Structure formats: C-alpha cells, structure tokens
C-alpha cells in the first residue's frame, strides 16, 4: 500500500490454544489505511507480529464464506468489513458463536453443515423429466421469485447468531431458507418432502431477526422462514402446541384461551375508560393480550394506567374490542388469521379518535409499524418506553426514591433489533437514582433473544438447557446483577421461567421497566 496511514487501531483478539486448552487475549497495534479490511489487519498481524494467530480466509471478496468472526460482538465477514467504517480505535475479535472453537478464531463448522445434510439442495423432480436433453423453461419473473435466496454463501454467520440453533433439532436459518428457495423454484417438485424436513423443528425459530440483520449477503432469512411457516400451516402438518395457539385465536380473538369479555379484568378498580363508552382520547392505550390476561403481567398494565393518570393524560383502551395484534400469529404463518385480527383492529383505530397509540408490547408496536394492513393505515404509534422517556426528558415525571440495585437491561428483539429502539428504555433506567445499569455482553443489536417470539412463548417444549431464555439468564447471572430489566411481557414470561428452571429465584429477578420505575417514584 502506498497511501498514507490513517491511524493505528488496537486489535484485541480472544483466543484459544488447543494444546493447553486455555483461553487468552492478545492485543496488537495495527496500522490502518483507507480501505483496510479486518482480514488485512489479521494478515498484517500474522505476517509481522505473531505468526501463531489463527483464522480462516480465502477469497477476500465476500463470496467463499471462510472468514466469519465476531467483531465487537457482531458476526461479520472479516474480508468484507473495513476497519475505518467501525469508527473506533480498538476492536475486539472473537470466534463465531454456537460452534466449538478449534483454535483462536477458527470454529468447527460441522454443526452448521450438518443441518444441510438433512435437506436436499438440488432439484427434486421425477427421473424421466431429469433425462430431458434441454433446459427446463423458467421465465425471468419466476427466477426473480427466489433469486435473492440463492445468494447464501454458507458462512454460518446466521447460525452463529441464531438463538434457536442451540437446539440441534433446529434446521437453522440457512438451511430453512435454502429449503424455501427450492420450494419457490418453479422447476422443483419436492414441496411435500421439503415441508416434511421442516415441519417438526421450524417452530423453534423465534423470529428475532438476527439471521437477517447479520447476513453479509442480505438474505431475508427470517421472512423466508415465515413463508415456510405459511406453507406448513396450509398443509396442516403442525404440532399440537401451535394448533392450540391458533385455535384460541380463532375462537377468542386472542391466544390466551380466554374470552374477550374478560380482557379488562386487569382493570380491578374499573377506573380506566374504555371503548365504546369513550370514543376519543389523546392516547389509545393498547394493552396486549399478555398484559391483559396473564395475572403476572396484569400489574404492568395497571402501572402504565396509573402513570397516565398521574400525568393527567387523556387515554382509553379499546376494552373487549382490542383483539390480539396478530404479530405472533403472522410469524407462525397464519396470514389469513392475522389479516382478520388486523382488519378488526384497524377498523377500531378508525372509529376511535386518538392522536397516538401507545403499546405495552414491542410485538404490537412492531406489527403496527411494519405489517399490512396496519402499516398502510399510517398509525402514530409509540412503545411505552418511548412515551416515558419523552415524559422524563420534559420533566413531567421525576423520580424521588433511590433504587440501589444492579440492573442489566435485556433488549426485546421486536423493540431493539427490529425497530432500533435501544436508547429510550436505558434513558428511563438511567434517570433512577442509585440504580447501576450494566450491559450484558450480548446487547443491543447483538442481544440474545429470550426465545419467546413467533408464538414460542406458548409452544416451548425444549429441554431446559436448550432454551434461549436459560442461556440468557445465565449470562445475567455471570454479570452478578440483581435485576434483569426488560420491556416486553413475553420476555418476562420466558426469563422468569428460566429463573425457575435454574432455581435462582433468590439471586435474580426479572422486572418490567415500569415496575422498576414505580419503585423510584
């Protein structure tokens, strides 16, 4: 390189020596130029500073899939990431997760490729047709339907980031996407066989979206898995647990197995105004099925109401006309049922005159923002943490009591990864005197899913050690925190479940941000 060096960047590399079976960290100073990739930095170290540093690499153009590593907690291709783009003076490099480490940054990729051994990645067609001496006709628009899904370089980054992949029954985002690629290929006739290979394990996907966020080739894996779900739901080959959730929604318009008339039971004092008694308010308070029916979470619904009261906000709920938002149902693949729920809710939003909608659950928030028909209704929607952070900033809420606790905030995937809401919940916690807010190792974009999304909060049946929530609580325990704070009713359910499984109820608790805020008021 003949250009001027831009700066020296520190490479901190978490390593493993298989001879001594010891983990250790090495730190190197690497001269970085405009355009220098992380891979070039690693090569610089190997060629000039430490020949023993071990990593895989080959094409150095993002197509062979060799050089996936964790960079500052996020999995990426070393050859396709420029050091200066990271905008920091020190970077931490680690091997990919979910696979055993062989040496330094080299992991055993076999568990990832084992998933491919369970599916077919060639066309399935009858023998006679395959003997045809000319190509099968495929129109450009037919190719276009699956083209994006053919770009997987099998780097295993999605597998590394996937919370469901800790259960080896799961085919994983890459193989599931490949399956959908072939199902969508107009030449393929193996649909039934392909659905079968997925039907007993695809439900382990939590739709946390990590696979899609980190894919260096931008494959829409999470959406492909939803599309797989749709086909399996259509075929009827679904497990009892999933069937139960869907049937409850058919029957009651909510997944909780309880009649809609009980939806306002959380409102013990009957002080919250509801539709149709009220048809307009500044805020339409969308409570979410979990907070409405789950006795543990009803307290959260009440706390939000009391804060609205305290602030003097004009607000109301839809009462028994609030149906499930359908986020879990859509991601379980029941698109028709989702549309029915959404159309009802959108109609109610139109009948009810409100400036904005405030949701308790990140799932309602997410689907209102992104999924048709909600998205085309252009709703003004806020997650409650955004509403509260705003109120705190404006001085409308002031905390008076000290809360002397060490707290780690767990980002709900549908709030953080899917909507980039990372700051509002933290701002609320930081406003509380005495509270020590710490970050878990896997945080924000790299946060590790609790395992509750896409209906899994109701369908979980994995061995405890294979549940993402258990992994997550263990991570918090390692940090020595008193409280895991979160802002999603489903995260609360799964993480509390993990605390029971681990039998650590005397060491750590899970609290909604509202519950912590209440202590400080």
């Amino acid at each position: 390189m003949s250009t001027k060096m831009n700066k020296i960047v520190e490479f901190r590399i978490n390593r493993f020596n298989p001879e001594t079976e010891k983990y250790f960290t090495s730190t190197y100073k690497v001269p970085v130029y405009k355009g220098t990739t992380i891979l070039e930095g690693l090569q610089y170290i190997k060629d000039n500073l430490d020949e023993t540093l071990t990593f895989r690499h080959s094409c150095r153009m993002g197509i062979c899939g060799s050089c996936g590593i964790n960079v500052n907690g996020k999995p990426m291709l070393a050859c396709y990431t420029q050091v200066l783009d990271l905008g920091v003076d020190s970077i931490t490099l680690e091997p990919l997760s979910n696979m055993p480490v062989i040496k330094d940054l080299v992991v055993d990729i076999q568990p990832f490729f084992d998933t491919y051994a369970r599916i077919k990645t060639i066309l399935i067609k009858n023998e006679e047709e395959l003997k045809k001496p000319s190509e099968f006709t495929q129109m450009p628009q037919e190719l276009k339907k699956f083209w994006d899904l053919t770009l997987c370089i099998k780097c295993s980054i999605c597998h590394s980031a996937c919370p469901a992949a800790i259960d080896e029954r799961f085919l994983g985002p890459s193989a599931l996407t490949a399956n959908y690629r072939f199902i969508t290929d107009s030449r393929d006739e193996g649909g039934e066989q392909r659905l079968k290979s997925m039907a007993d394990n695809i439900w382990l996907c939590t739709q946390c979206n990590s696979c899609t966020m980190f894919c260096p080739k931008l494959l829409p894996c999470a959406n492909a898995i939803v599309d797989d779900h749709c086909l399996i739901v259509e075929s009827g080959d679904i497990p009892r647990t999933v069937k139960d959730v869907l049937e409850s929604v058919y029957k009651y318009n909510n997944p909780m197995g309880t009649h809609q008339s009980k939806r306002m039971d959380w409102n013990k004092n009957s002080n919250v105004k509801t539709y149709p008694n009220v048809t307009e308010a500044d805020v339409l308070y969308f409570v979410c099925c979990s907070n409405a029916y789950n006795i543990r979470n009803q307290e959260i619904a009440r706390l939000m109401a009391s804060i609205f009261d305290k602030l003097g906000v004009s607000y109301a709920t839809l009462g028994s006309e609030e149906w499930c938002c359908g986020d879990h149902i859509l991601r379980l693949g029941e698109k028709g049922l989702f549309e029915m729920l959404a159309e009802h809710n959108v109609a109610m939003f139109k009948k009810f005159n409100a400036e904005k909608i405030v949701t308790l659950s990140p799932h309602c928030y997410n689907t209102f923002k992104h999924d048709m028909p909600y998205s085309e209704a252009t709703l003004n929607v806020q997650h409650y943490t955004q509403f509260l952070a705003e109120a705190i900033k404006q001085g409308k809420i002031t905390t008076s009591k000290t809360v002397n606790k060490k707290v780690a905030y767990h980002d709900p995937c549908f709030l953080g990864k899917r909507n980039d809401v990372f700051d509002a919940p933290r701002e609320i916690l930081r406003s509380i005197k005495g509270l020590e807010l710490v970050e878990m190792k896997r945080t924000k974009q790299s946060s590790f899913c609790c395992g509750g999304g896409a209906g899994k909060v109701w369908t979980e049946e994995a061995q405890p050690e294979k549940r993402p929530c258990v992994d997550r609580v263990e991570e918090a325990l390692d940090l020595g925190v008193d409280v895991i704070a979160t802002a999603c009713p489903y995260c609360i359910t799964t993480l509390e479940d993990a605390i029971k499984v681990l039998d650590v109820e005397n060491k750590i608790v899970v609290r909604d941000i509202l519950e912590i805020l209440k202590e400080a008021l």
Partner: protein
Amino acid sequence: MEKYAHDILIVGAGLAGLRAAVAASEVNSKLDIAVISKLHPLRSHSVCAQGGTGAVMREKDSFDLHAFDTIKGADYLADQDAVEFFVKNAPKEIILTEHWGCPWSRTPDGKIDQRPFGGHTFPRACFAADMTGFHEMHTLYGKATSYDNVNFYDEWFVTSILVDNNTAVGLTAIEMKTGKMHAFQTKAIIMATGGYERIYEFTTFSHTTTGDGMAMAYRAGAPLMDMEFVQFHPTGLVPSGVLITEGARGEGGYLLNAKGERFMKNYAAEKMELAPRDVISRAEQTEILEGRGWEGPYGPYIALDLTHLGEEKINERLPLIRDVAIKLGGVDPVKEYIPIRPAAHYSMGGIRTNIKTETSIKGLYAAGECSCVSIHGANRLGTNSTAECLVFGAVAGEEAAKCASLYSFHEVSNQMVLAEEKRVFDGILGSEGNERVSAIRDELRRMMNTKVWIFRIGDQLESALKEIRELKRRFKNIKVEDKGKQFNTGFASALQLDFMLDLGEITIISALARTESRGAHSRRDYPKRDDENWLKHTLAYQTKDGPRLEYIPVTITRWPPAARTY
C-alpha cells in the same frame, strides 16, 4: 498413523473435483470415493468465477465456431482434438447443472441466457448474473453430497502423491484439525487443485490458490506443460486485485485511459473491449507505461466505465461487481469509474494430460486449472475455464472410475509415508532457521510481479531465475513460529510456499526458453510469434538440478495457424 483406503481419491473440491466426484459416482455406485481438500469445498476458488460458462446452446452458434474462437484465442497452441472434444461436451454440462438446480439467468422466453465475451464471435457465455462459478459450485456441492458413496475430507491438506513403479498408489494428508498425517491407499487419484496465481502480488486469486497439486504431480514425476503461459486479466480491482468480471465489458462496459479515450480502438479496432484478455492486458499495460494511465494513490490505473449501462442493468446483471466495487474499491459503478489494472488470473499450463485426463503416471488423472490438456494453448478465452472444469472433471471421474473398477489396491509402504513425515514435520515444521515464511513469500510475489509480468525480457527473466533460486535456498532456513499441532496455518503456509517456489522456477525457466511472443507470453526481445521454431508445447520435468525442459508438437486438426488480429 491411520491408513485410509478409498477406490478413488479426488484432491481438491472446486468445480472440477466435485464434477469428477459426481461422474465417478454415476459410473458405479459401489465405488468408494473420497474428496480431499484443504478447504471446505464451498471455500474453493471456483466460487469466485463470475462472468459465464461457454457452451454452444443455440442453432445460430456452432461447435466449429466455438472451437475456432478458442484456437485463435489460444494463438494456435491449443491441441485441436482436445478443443473439438471440449466444445461438443460443454452444452450437456450446462443442461446437467440446470437440471440439478443451477439458477441460470434467463431470456424473456425462459431459456438459459447467454452474453457476449472476449474473443468469442457469438454470445455463448451462459451466466447466473455475475456469480456463475458460485452458483455452479453450490449446485454441484448439493449434487455431490447427495451420493452415499462420496466421502468428504474437508480441511485435510494433501502433501504428496505416493507413486510406485510409475503408478499412483496413494497419498499423504494432514488433518488440519488434529495436525496428524495420514496415508491414503487408492486405485486412482484425480488432481483438481486449481491454479497457482498467488505467486504473483497483484492477482485475482484467493489466498489459498497456491498450486499445491501441480507441484505434487511434478514432484511425483509428471511433467508440467506450458507453464510460461500465465493469463493476466484486464480488470483486477485496484488495490486488492479482486476480479471484476469480463462480463462487465460483455454487458457494454468501456475501458478508458486518462484522456478519457476508449484506447482499445488503437489495439483491436474491431473487437474493442471484447478482444481476448492477452490483447487487452497488453494494451492497458502499454497505456500505463506510456503515461496515459489515471493517477491514483496505488499507482497508475485504467478506468472501467459502466455508468452508461444504468442502475437497473447493473443491479440485474452485475450485482456482485457493484457490491465488490463499493465495499473493496470505494466506488459505486453506477456513478463512478472502477479503477482497474491487469492482474494475474489463470494458468494455461499445468499437469500434462491427454483427452482422457490421464497423466504420464498410471492411475493419476488431472482436470481443471491444475491440468493442461491443452485447450487454452497460449491464452484462454473467458468462459472456457469453468466449462473446462465441468467437461474434463466429468471425464476424469468417469476414467478414474473405470480404472478403479479394473484394478485392486496397491501397496502403500510405511517407508514412503515415513519419508514424507520426515520431509514435512522435520524438514519444514521442525526447521529452526531464521527466515520468515511470509517474508520469502512476499519477496517471491513481488519479484514475479516485476520480472515475470505481462511484458518479459531475457535478462529480467535471467535475474528472476537467480532470485528465485536464492529464495529457494533461503527457504531451507525457515522457521515456523507456531509449533502447535492443531490447525497450524503457519505450517500450512510454509508447505504452500514450498510448492509455490517450485512453480515459480518452472514458470521462469519455461518463459526464458521460449524466445517468441505468443498469446499471454510476450517477450520484448522476441516480439513475434515464431511458428517455425515454437509451435510446440513446453514440458517441464523435475530433476535434481531443477526443471528439465522437453518439447512436444501441437495437435493441429483443421485450423492451421494464421495471423491473429481482432
């Protein structure tokens, strides 16, 4: 030490290796086949092939036309019987991969689409956007892994071919994960290890394409043919050398000098940017040497202009190129010129084989870039390498299967394996000198780049030969810092460098001897093609004193050498 036995051993898991595995398995499902590669198959350099695979698919095209284009492109050094066989067998490979699921780009009426390519007189490059090799590889991997009788040894580094009585009897390989050497016993071996362009500093090639297989076959006694012919691709991205496909020009891209001129009008007025690669690379180098290159922080370069193609076409036909240019070149080809210059790209030479992919050693076959059959002669046309891997990979698989069905296992003596262990572990890993492997490697690559580049001249080649012999001497005095067993990549680099040094020496000696200019071999001191003295193939044999050269005639069937203009 464990000994493994398989009826067929395939070394290398790129296009040729995987195609061979499929073909062998199709011949006889009872054969026990092993594919051994130092990389996971999908990490092979074949995934980097971009622009297309050449095959006659339409009525207006013809085998004769494809054959003639190839032979003229080869500057008449190709063996014409092999070329005729090749062009006839290419179309069925396209159909097979299509039937297995390869997502070939399509015409509006749903047929496999084809784009123009340099030196071809008909648009015959079948393509899957600009990721042709990638898609062929992933398709073939899906196919090869669907057979129960194909076993994969991923990340096993083959160090030598074991030969007894001029018969290939087995090989030795180090399992990277454990660092242990194992012996393999076999009835037939197929070498499919690709090229060796990493011996050049500015190259389109992956870090791992170090020519191991060529060097192993050479050491086993097989001659390497036409090693002076190294192709320089006209469009290597500055500064990394990453390939920008010829398809970019196939789709209508221009090459511009610093005056903004399409300078190809002065070199190949008819074909312009779609002249063969040797012609364009020489033109670019001339423009740069005569001061008409663009000035950049990494030295002078040529501009590849795609801006007039429009965003839609670029996104549809050249999506990888756009991504790579943005990520690694810092330019968006929709709006800006791509900075490029010639980069070492392909070895026309390789392990000499006949049309059946047989080498001079019984039971040893070779296919793909590591081989020289020879269909590319002095200069390969774009799209003919992936096609070659498919066509001759299949032949190798079939021929090796026949061979393995006829013969029984040969004896692999402990003595042979112990000798190899000694060479590798004591001689290389255990060497306690003071030379760094990376330093010798970088010096080699820089030297090849300055002295054995596009334009060559006798005294520079002489000096290169001296230098490489000095580097070989210094290699005896290396020290591998990492003494660990498991996944020792420092050790692997040393093994690779050992192979690269042999290949560099053969390239220089072959180039020095050939006192003419033909195809990619361009001698300033002998600027003309000399059919009278040099219409012949170079063979390099290993001897104690370095490579010994012999020559054999070129097979001419129907196309006598003629002037080569574009």
